[in-house]
């Protein structure tokens, strides 16, 4: 469906492009205040230990040290994503639960003194046995990490929809496969930092955050303050990918240190500390059973998962539900069972990472589906086309799907990747293989991140007095994904104004209306809806003003390209600028307001809110790889991504999201894994041995979108940022299988694992011959 828009659908330049390219953009760590101190957090060197004593006297005596704090100096109110799982303190009180757990903090006149001061804090520990393998965390006799959570079970989920027993009984083939995921870390280029300062009872925190509002809520809650006395400001942010979604401790500790010293305090993580704080991808053990008919139609599926949560809940309860809840999105079947344990371990806590709980289960399911197709002698593309979800359907777990062009995506991907030719005998050079995988994701979560009846997004647009520009005030944080740009496009579209004349003030809890934040791929749809409403209110006011100026009824008037004109009488027109100015003179400020709250969504069972969304994106990736048979080296030869993301606001930014998501997904597929030694210490907390991809590793990428329109969304938009990460791991797994006839059942699908699988295959074949 094509819609008539002037600004939506255009690749306008990023509103922040010039600042970023010239280096003028200021990130949190660039912000300086007179008299500012520097702060750092002391963390635990042990995976699990009782704190016997903390002696800060030597640190306090060091010249340049202005304050040292421990749990005695901060509130002992636990925090976390939901009241039933509040399990984390600002500083550890009785025990440390992972290498990196927070014990104390210092504020000093310079950074270097901070590092020296940390070394002078004497902490006496009694080392306890640790739980390092999540698959053994529930076993008899394992150490207990939190007293309140027996058997180290953080979250337990058991859901059944339809009748899975019956589905398996009726199936022609019931197959089970098991897969193991990896711990991945978001690795944003900008390290986390927060600068806190007080003015009387009012606290201001500049923070590299994905959600100023959520930070404001938790900071106020921890310190028993009114939210109105806490201001959180997000400067430019260099990527978050889920890792900057919740307060890190830098905000809490910084606030206390700033209060004690009466001076602004800048807190920051170095790269090692980022890895230790973590909140990255959960490693999951995933057992998947599917029953299919002889023709390949899926009758039912059972997901049986375990998840390495690390030492705290973080956002992990949502991750746990997402892991199973999103699996039935791309294929239609009626019977679904989902069991999961999220387990505490003495490792850094895991949280939300691009795609949230979905990408690893998707890897497992898509690999498993290819195994099923192989058993049935079916083409992987055909089995997906046969089962692909259609529009206006409902998943077994009660998610209502409206627009869905998955079939179109599969068909296009098949064509542009030259799938059918390549799948023929000799269709690709030796060592090459091609794989396909699907994905889907929420366009914003249906329910808020903490219990509240506030709208999810709200904006104000103010047209400036002389009508030459308009400013959008939004709580929505641009963390690099480009929301400042697309929201200005949407505001200008709704007003009938020019994008080039838009200004934006964003992600400041004091000057902007609230927004829940940049997570769950929510801004384009949800904040976009608020922008549309605000822009339309402006337009309505302008047309009323113009009506009295032109002596024509308002409904005869329209505003486009900053010109207000009569639909019936040619030549009767005024500029946006003169009408806006007149409005200010006669009626006062020209303001538009908009807010967005999702409709009531989802079923009535326990956990039903997680995974609900007003709209879902769908996508398909096809990847071609080349495997070096002697070394297992994997070269990504080409990738084809076809997406249904509704109406596209800014094509260039959209394709940028696809490329970025693919790069992250590729990293997690083959190259990235956080490794620990037998004491729970990270072995590769740096970018040399934790290998995110370089530009040289990226294959040529063809990114396409299909024609799609989402009725429930402003201008028919849907998400792109996270959904495009979902198919990649499965795509690699399947392409490797196609190339070599071996399946690697654990992530990352490293060169060495591929080499080993090939070696074992050769040995099996030789064994058969002998």
């Amino acid at each position, binding site marked *: 469906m094509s819609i008539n828009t002037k600004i939506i659908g255009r690749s306008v330049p990023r509103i922040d492009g010039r600042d970023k390219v010239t280096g003028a953009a200021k990130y949190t760590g660039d912000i300086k205040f007179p008299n500012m101190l520097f702060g750092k957090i002391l963390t635990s060197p042990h995976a699990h230990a009782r704190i016997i004593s903390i002696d800060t006297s030597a640190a306090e005596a060091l010249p340049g040290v202005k304050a040292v704090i421990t749990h005695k100096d901060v509130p002992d109110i636990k925090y976390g994503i939901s009241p039933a799982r509040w399990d984390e303190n600002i500083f550890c009180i009785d025990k440390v639960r992972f290498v990196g757990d927070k014990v104390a903090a210092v504020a000093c006149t310079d950074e270097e003194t901070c*590092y020296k001061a940390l070394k002078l804090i004497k902490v006496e520990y009694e080392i306890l046995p640790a739980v390092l393998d999540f698959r053994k965390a529930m076993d008899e006799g394992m150490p207990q990490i939190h007293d309140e959570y027996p058997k180290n079970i953080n979250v337990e989920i058991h859901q059944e929809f339809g009748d899975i027993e019956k589905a398996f009984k009726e199936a022609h083939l019931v197959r089970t496969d098991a897969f193991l995921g990896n711990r991945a870390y978001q690795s944003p280029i900008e390290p986390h930092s927060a600068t806190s300062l007080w003015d009387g009872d009012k606290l201001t925190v500049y923070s590299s955050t994905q959600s100023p509002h959520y930070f404001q809520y938790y900071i106020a809650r921890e310190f028993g303050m009114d939210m109105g006395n806490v201001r959180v400001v997000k400067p430019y942010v260099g990527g978050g990918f889920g890792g900057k979604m919740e307060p890190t401790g830098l905000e809490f500790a910084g606030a206390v240190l700033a209060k004690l010293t009466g001076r602004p305090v800048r807190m920051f993580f170095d790269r090692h500390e980022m890895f230790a704080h973590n909140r990255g991808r959960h490693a999951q053990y995933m057992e998947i059973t599917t029953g299919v008919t002889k023709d390949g139609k899926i009758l039912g599926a059972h997901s049986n998962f375990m998840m390495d949560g690390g030492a705290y809940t973080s956002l992990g309860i949502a991750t746990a539900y997402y892991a199973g809840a999103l699996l039935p999105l791309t294929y239609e079947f009626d019977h679904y069972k989902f069991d999961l344990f999220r387990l505490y371990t003495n490792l850094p806590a895991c949280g939300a990472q691009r795609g949230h709980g979905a990408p690893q289960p998707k890897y497992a399911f898509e690999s498993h589906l290819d195994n099923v197709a192989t058993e049935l002698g079916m083409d992987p593309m055909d089995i997906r086309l046969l089962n692909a979800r259609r529009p206006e359907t409902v998943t077994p777990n009660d998610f209502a799907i409206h627009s869905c062009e998955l079939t179109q995506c599969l068909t296009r991907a098949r064509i542009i990747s030259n799938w059918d030719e390549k799948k023929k005998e000799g269709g690709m050079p030796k060592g090459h293989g091609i794989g396909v995988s699907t994905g889907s994701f929420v366009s914003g979560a249906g329910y808020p991140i903490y219990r509240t009846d506030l709208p999810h997004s709200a904006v104000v647009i103010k047209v400036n007095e002389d009508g030459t520009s308009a400013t959008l005030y939004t709580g929505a944080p641009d963390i690099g994904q480009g929301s400042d740009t697309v929201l200005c496009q949407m505001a200008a579209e709704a007003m009938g104004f020019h994008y080039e004349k838009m200004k934006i003030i964003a992600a400041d809890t004091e000057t902007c209306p609230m927004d829940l934040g940049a997570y769950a791929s929510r801004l384009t749809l949800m904040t976009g809806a608020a922008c549309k409403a605000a822009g339309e209110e402006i337009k309505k006011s302008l047309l009323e003003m113009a009506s009295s100026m032109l002596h024509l009824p308002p409904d005869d008037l329209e505003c486009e390209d900053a010109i207000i004109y009569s639909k019936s009488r040619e030549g009767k027109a005024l500029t946006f600028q003169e009408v806006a100015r007149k409005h200010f003179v006669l009626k006062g400020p020209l303001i538009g307001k908009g807010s967005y709250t999702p409709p009531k969504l989802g079923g009535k069972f326990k956990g039903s809110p997680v995974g609900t969304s007003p709209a879902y994106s769908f996508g398909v990736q096809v990847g071609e790889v080349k495997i070096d048979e002697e070394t297992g080296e994997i070269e990504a030869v080409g990738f084809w991504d076809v997406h249904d993301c509704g109406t596209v606001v800014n094509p260039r930014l959209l394709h940028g999201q696809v490329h970025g998501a693919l790069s992250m997904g590729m990293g997690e597929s083959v*190259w990235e894994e956080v490794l620990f030694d037998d004491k729970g210490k990270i072995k590769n907390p740096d970018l040399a*041995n934790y290998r995110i991809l370089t530009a*040289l590793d990226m294959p040529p990428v063809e990114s396409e979108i299909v024609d799609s329109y989402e009725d429930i969304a402003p201008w028919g938009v849907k998400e792109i940022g996270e959904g495009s990460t979902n198919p990649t791991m499965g795509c690699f797994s399947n392409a490797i299988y196609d190339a070599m006839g071996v399946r690697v059942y654990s992530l990352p699908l490293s060169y*060495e694992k591929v*080499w080993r699988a090939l070696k074992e295959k050769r040995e099996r074949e030789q064994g058969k011959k002998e």
Partner: protein
Amino acid sequence: MYLPDFDYHSPESIDEALSLLANLGSGAKVLAGGTDLLHKMKQGDLAPKALVSLKGLDKLKGINYVEGRGVVIGALSTQNDILYSEVLAKKYPSVSHAAKKMASNQIRHLGTVGGNIVNAVPSADLPPILIALGASITLVSTSGKREMALEEFFVEPASSVINEGEILTEIVIPDGDLTGSSYHKFGLRRSGALAVVGVAASARVAGGVIEEARIVCASSAPKVIRTPKAEAFLAGKSPAPEVLEELQAIVESEVRPRDSIRGSAEYRRNLAGVLAKRALVDAVESGHGLPAED
């Protein structure tokens, strides 16, 4: 992370550097590019009392062909100097190729060939190809100067025969009758990756027959090593498939890799054998290689 406190000396001549080192004794370290040393100091692995910087010693820079000696590489030449050297592009592009595979552009711009050798890490990329080409090095101190074959320099990880107070000044690739050389590196991504294994090969080929060959392996033992049995095996052979298969097996039997974060010993053993075949084929069939592209 911050550097510990230390004294910084920037001598203006080699003699001044040598006497500084002699006076400062074991508390001093030589600073060339600093890509390894400063990192170790920031990590707290090293805390020298003093650094003697060679950065101002222009005599240690430059890559030249000297009649009668061969290609003379100043120890302070950066990895990018090697990558972009016209002399090497003409004589031994295989050396430039090895430099190209190192680290990233920013690090290659700072890191020096001398540092790459003196650090004595088993995964260094330049020593294998230099040893394959029979390079020698010059070490100087206040008590004189000595020359030795580069392959005799290494002892074990981070340990070599260099004495306290000695500076590596130059590397010489002698004129010879080798007809080809090549370095194959296996890293886990295309940039910014250390060698899981690296293998250099050189050969003197006449009439399709290998008269002499060298196979030199990095990240395959506690130091960069040659594989004498494989080299002896190759003499008098041509690189037919069955010869290469046997070469792989012999190299695999000669290397002594260990398990590490980048690969198991078993995997590395296999990689050494595979890369030896590939490096040898290149050395036999493609001479010293084509000049590296930018």
